[in-house]
């Protein structure tokens, strides 16, 4: 209908082959698989990045991307990730953590060794902060152990927000007022900031779960929450992620997936554990347990 194109629109004539090249690039870098059926999603984000970088065409944008200059790979990855979450999401898994997983972990844990919990992807921090709040409210032995919580994500933009720890009312919708009162400051109407003590207790790191070398910096965890990430991967990337989660866990450690995900169809590395509140996956204590 429009008779004249804007400069943006001219830059955005992208062929299916160019989309395929971009998707292949993203896949190789992140394991995230986008196909033709996600064309609208891809086009929108690609358009944003072409405009944001001032590229004159897909070709010039793709050259910039492949050059690794200006942090464009990171910007593109940030644009393609989905980051919506809220506090106490899938609360039944938090209940499972304190009722069943931590007691199991503690049975074999040497004294003075910290409990380590990893939230990946952590998005803007709701999940790792939820773990912290949940433990302080529901784990009676919370004062007897050093507990380390690490939140990681591939998207550096959300990690910066997670460190800030400022949330709107929508993120807090499942938290009772008493917990909001106890763990949040309310600097301005509609804005809630995690109190400094909790904020300073959680470490946030960048990680790509299909990059073994990056995950190698995240090891020795007792519990990993990896929810609603594997659904974005293809079979090969899911298996790599499963191997990396296995490697990140201590023997006997647990991984919790999202309610629509199952490890059994991805990998036989883990043992399925059915607890009253959740199905979780355990790294076997010994090699023999798994063979």
């Amino acid at each position, binding site marked *: 209908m429009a008779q004249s194109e804007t400069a943006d629109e001219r830059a955005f004539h992208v062929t299916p082959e160019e989309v395929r090249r971009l998707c292949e690039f993203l896949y190789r870098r992140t394991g995230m698989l986008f196909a033709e059926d996600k064309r609208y999603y891809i086009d929108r984000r690609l358009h944003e990045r072409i405009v944001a970088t001032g590229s004159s065409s897909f070709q010039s944008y793709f050259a910039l991307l492949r050059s690794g200059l200006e942090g464009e790979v990171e910007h593109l990855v940030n644009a393609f990730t989905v980051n919506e979450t809220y506090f106490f999401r899938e609360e039944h898994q938090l209940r499972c953590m304190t009722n069943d997983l931590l007691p199991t972990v503690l049975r074999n844990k040497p004294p003075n060794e910290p409990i380590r919990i990893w939230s990946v992807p952590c998005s803007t921090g709701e999940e790792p902060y939820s773990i912290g709040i949940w433990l302080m409210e529901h784990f009676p032995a919370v004062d007897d152990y050093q507990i380390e919580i690490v939140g990681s994500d591939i998207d550096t933009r959300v990690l910066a927000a997670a460190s800030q720890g400022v949330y709107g009312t929508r993120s807090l919708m499942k938290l009772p007022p008493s917990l909001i009162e106890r763990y949040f400051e309310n600097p301005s109407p509609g804005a809630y900031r995690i109190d400094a003590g909790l904020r300073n207790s959680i470490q946030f790191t960048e990680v790509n779960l299909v990059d073994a070398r990056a995950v190698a910096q995240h090891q020795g965890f007792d519990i990993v929450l990896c929810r609603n990430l594997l659904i974005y991967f293809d079979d090969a990337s899911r298996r790599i992620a499963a191997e990396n989660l*296995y490697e990140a866990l201590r023997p006997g450690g647990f991984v919790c997936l999202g309610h629509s995900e199952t490890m059994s169809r991805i990998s036989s590395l883990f043992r399925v554990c059915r607890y009253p509140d959740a199905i979780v996956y355990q790294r076997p204590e010994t090699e023999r347990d798994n063979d």
Partner: protein
Amino acid sequence: MPLVRRGTTPPPEPAVAEDRAHALEALRSADPDVRWNAARTFQNDPVGVVALAAALETEPVQRVREAIMTALMRIGTDASVKALLPYLRWQDAARRGAAIEALQSLPDAIAPFMSALLRDQDNDVRILAIELVRGMPAEQATTLLCRLLEHENHPNVCASAIDALADLGTEEALPILRACARRFAKTPFLPFAISTAIARISDTKG
């Protein structure tokens, strides 16, 4: 505050093989952890296919075998497919199943091999090949399965192909299915299966 920031516990040194030469050597290590890490080093390195294929043949530990298969899947080249295909003939069902799973995830890479697999002398291999066809786009799968059905004489292989067509076939398969029903008129379960497949394909179309 009982929660503490990480940093008090230095992460253990990763056992990831640092370079390709080291990783090639590590694939033959006596330590399964070293072999596991070596296999994972090759996840994006097509040069590793030959070494991975050799390691897969003798690897006794399931976890390491899985890592090798994962690396071959991720590399996803013709060479990966060639490394995995021999396991379709393997007696060990676990390895055979793992190979099928890996090959199913590579529909583009296996496409050039499918015609030969569907003509294999071994009935069981042809049946497994049909399982691989299931992972391919419907039109391509229909063409391959129809070609098979035109000449296939083994009723169990035909039954597998008919079952696959019932799930993903397009209407191009209908005349081939009817001809197959006539050819196997004395094997009652096949015409019955074919009538079901025809009804499902026609329903999908309608």
